[in-house]
């Protein structure tokens, strides 16, 4: 009987060692996973984000301003053409109209 007990005790010692090794390995697996997880999250935080350029805004800005410049030139041309006759008309209205001052 003592040999049986001795054998069982040996076996339990060996079993405990097997389980301890498995627990240590489990701990290492989880630690490695946590380390990997940290890396994955950090990489997501630091990876440059590329955004597709939705519109060519610089070209659009230039077009808006250029259109305004063309319109300004057209305003100048039209106003210059009309100016002389309109000046005469206004001078006449100022001098002859009911624009007398205050008393």
């Amino acid at each position, binding site marked *: 009987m003592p040999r049986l007990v001795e054998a069982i005790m040996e076996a339990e010692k060996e079993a405990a060692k097997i389980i301890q090794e498995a627990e240590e390995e489990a701990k290492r697996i989880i630690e490695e996973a946590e380390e990997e997880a940290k890396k994955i999250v950090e990489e997501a935080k630091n990876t440059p984000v590329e955004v597709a350029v939705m519109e060519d805004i610089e070209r659009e800005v230039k077009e808006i301003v250029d259109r305004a410049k063309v319109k300004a030139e057209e305003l100048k041309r039209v106003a210059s053409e009309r100016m002389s006759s309109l000046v005469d008309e206004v001078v006449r209205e100022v001098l002859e109209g009911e624009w*007398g001052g205050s008393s």
Partner: protein
Amino acid sequence: MSGEEVVSVDKDSEAIVRAILKMAEDRANAIRKEAEKRAKEIIESARREAEEILRSRRERAEREMREEIARKRSAAEVEANQIVLMTKSEMLREFFRRVHEKLAATADGQEPGWNYEEILTKYSLEGAKILGEKEVFLMGREKDGSLLEKVAKKLEKEGIKASVDKRTVPVIGGVVVRDSGDERRYYNTFDGRLRAYREAKEIELIGKLFEGV
């Protein structure tokens, strides 16, 4: 203990040892399996978190880009409006500079089609009538002194006693009519008429100058 009994004990102990070790190995495998499962969950959770971070960063970057585009477009539209408004303002200023110039030339007798003396007479009569006075004083530009003397004589013929005030007024042209006590004045100057005209008609005038553009 007989030989048979010894063999039997050895066989029993071997079976027990095997069973103990088998249980330990099963437990160890279960521990490893559980750890691997947990590790997989940790990695998957991290991947999901990373995807969410990237999605959120992309959305933010896109929003910022859209805002930047809107800012630039808005600034361009403001600049465009300023270009147009400044041109209109410049042309309007030039327009009134020419009107002013023409009024000054009229007052200096350099505009064909206009008789400044007649204008002064008309304005003076108008002023006297509005003041309702039979005796008035006429004030004008320094260089209009002799013209105003002539106008005063014309007013006399209309039954209004008129004199030229020694004081002058710094105007383009026209006349200021006052009563004898200088309690009431009627300003019928080119400057005042132009100002009143401009206040009343400027919007209409802008329309006429730039219509159709």
